[in-house]
């Protein structure tokens, strides 16, 4: 069979019979071409959407929840309602120790402060952070480094700034590592600069200083602004949120049914919605694409059936000349597979063009909705394999039809 497929004669026969009616062969191919085009176009676009979401959330541990203190809405254990809830480092530590499935707990603090450098100044949010933040919210460092453990232990007055702030406080191409900026009237040495994220999740984070330094200069004591809880990859983030809140209620003497005492934003849940949407879209794409493909392949089968009917006499002649039924069947199946594959390859190529078009129309720049719309080689291969299988199956119908007619009857037909 392999030898047969490698022979020039085989393809000469296929080419002869397909090219004798070019228009019909083309029309036959339209169905499959369109199916593959849809499949590639839609899958590529879906992938592009997914890529753009991934770019938005890329540097972020998405299996996370933010928790912060608000005001109580119910009196409890002698405390009146309306009491301000302040979370502390101890709370964070206990949550980390007691909630199952937690990977990191990142306590954070934030304040708006006047930042001055020489004659330039601005009000930015200043964050007190642990080195751990870099793990859950990856900073793309352009220069220098992020806060490390020594900075924390020694309460160093160092700052990591964003590209934006650099642009506002520094001249273009000016060296910034080792330079000083004044935060809250105190000099901080710049140790690093990071690239702006595409999206600022949660509160903006423009300047990062060591958590302990933050405690000192703003006189925060043990209090934290909020904590970010990151679950292990397979952990249920909603459960983590509920468990953490339960512990925090106990620690802070809050009524079990007080829903307003803590604010939270469950990024994991939001992200799951988007992921679910993307998965749904991909499923839909496959469904539509494959269904169209099947319809296209059936059209090919149908046309081949008509062709076989028209070629009854030719088939009779071939059989009179010594073609075995197997040779006839093989020929027709090869024709079916060939025409299916040819249409498929055209579809893949034109689908690729469409993706290139989509990319140049919607895929440029930072705000692009569709990023790198593409399909993987694996998908192309799967599509081709499906085509070969379907082409073979559908080719069998006219093939058996062709040999079910006796050569004598085929010849008699005028």
């Amino acid at each position, binding site marked *: 069979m392999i030898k047969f497929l490698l022979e020039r004669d085989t393809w000469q026969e296929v080419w002869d019979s397909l090219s004798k009616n070019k228009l019909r062969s083309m029309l036959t191919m339209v169905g499959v071409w369109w199916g593959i085009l849809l499949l590639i176009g839609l899958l590529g676009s879906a992938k592009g959407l997914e890529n753009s979401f991934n770019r938005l959330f890329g540097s972020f541990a998405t299996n996370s929840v933010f928790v912060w203190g608000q005001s109580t809405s119910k009196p409890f254990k002698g405390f009146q309602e309306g009491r301000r809830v302040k979370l502390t480092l101890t709370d964070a530590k206990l949550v980390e120790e007691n909630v199952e499935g937690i990977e990191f707990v990142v306590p954070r603090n934030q304040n708006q402060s006047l930042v001055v450098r020489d004659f330039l100044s601005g009000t930015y949010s200043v964050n007190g952070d642990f080195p751990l933040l870099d793990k859950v919210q990856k900073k793309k460092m352009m220069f220098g480094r992020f806060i490390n453990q020594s900075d924390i232990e020694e309460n160093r007055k160092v700052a990591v700034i964003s590209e934006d702030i650099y642009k506002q406080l520094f001249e273009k191409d000016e060296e910034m590592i080792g330079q000083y900026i004044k935060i809250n009237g105190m000099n901080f040495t710049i140790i690093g600069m990071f690239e702006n994220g595409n999206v600022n999740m949660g509160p903006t984070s423009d300047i990062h200083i060591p958590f302990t330094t933050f405690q000192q200069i703003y006189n925060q004591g043990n209090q934290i602004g909020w904590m970010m809880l990151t679950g292990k990859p397979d952990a249920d983030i909603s459960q983590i949120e509920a468990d953490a809140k339960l512990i925090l209620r106990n620690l802070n003497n809050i009524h079990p049914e007080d829903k307003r005492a803590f604010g939270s934003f469950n990024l994991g849940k939001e992200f799951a919605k988007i992921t679910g949407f993307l998965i749904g879209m991909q499923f839909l794409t496959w469904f539509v694409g494959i269904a169209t493909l099947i319809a296209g392949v059936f059209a090919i089968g149908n046309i081949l059936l008509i062709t076989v009917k028209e070629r009854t006499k030719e088939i009779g002649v*071939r059989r009179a000349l010594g073609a*075995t*039924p197997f040779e006839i069947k093989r020929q027709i199946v090869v024709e079916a597979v060939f025409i299916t594959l040819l249409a498929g390859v055209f579809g893949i190529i034109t689908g690729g063009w469409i993706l290139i078009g989509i990319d140049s129309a919607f895929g440029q720049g930072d705000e692009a909705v569709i990023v790198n719309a593409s399909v993987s080689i694996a998908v192309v291969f799967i599509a081709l394999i499906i085509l070969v299988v379907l082409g073979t199956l559908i080719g069998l119908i006219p093939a058996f039809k062709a040999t079910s007619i006796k050569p004598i009857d085929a010849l008699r037909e005028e």
Partner: protein
Amino acid sequence: MLNIKKLHKSYPIGDSSLHVLKGIDLSVDNGEMVAIMGSSGSGKSTLLNIIGMLDEADDGEYILDGVPIKNLTEKKAAIYRNKFLGFIFQSFNLINYKNALDNVALPLYYQGIKRQERQEKALFHLEKVGLKPWAEHLPNELSGGQKQRVAIARALAANPKLLLADEPTGALDTKTSYEIMDFIQSLNDEGKTILIVTHEEDIAHMCKRIVRLTDGVILEDEKVEQVRASQYV
């Protein structure tokens, strides 16, 4: 070469059946040129189809070149047809999207002969029928006589033991008919065994033996003085 004994064949028509061949006995030797004659419905085409293994007899014996032809699978029949028989049809039955050369080469393709050799052989046979310059032409660019000659070249290509012609001149004018018959006679002179089904007396008399069929039985089987077609050409 060919031995047929008590051959029967009937076709079902609705509930009843039509008995077409009612016990045919026929034997043809090597190098014979036999005309099978009869009016339409006499069973001559059916007989030729059975000899050509395109159809199978209900009953009786058929031995071709020492090989009993019985209960053939489609595959075996195809191989035998390819090896033993060359067909010439009334309507030529050339494949219209293949040029003359490829048409002639088709039986060789099914013999599994390599392309190069096939082309050479096909060209040789085309030259033999005098159509070498037309090798690249499609059938619809050829005249009726030329088409039939391509068909003859095709029938000869596989070097068959027996040439079967079903009304080979039926679609041709008289002059062309004689040209074709002249060529067929020359093949017979070279030793080919040839069976021709015809209803034209003049064509039949260009053979060496005439078998007359009426209502499914052989009425007459006589050797005749061969009329050379070349005198009319």
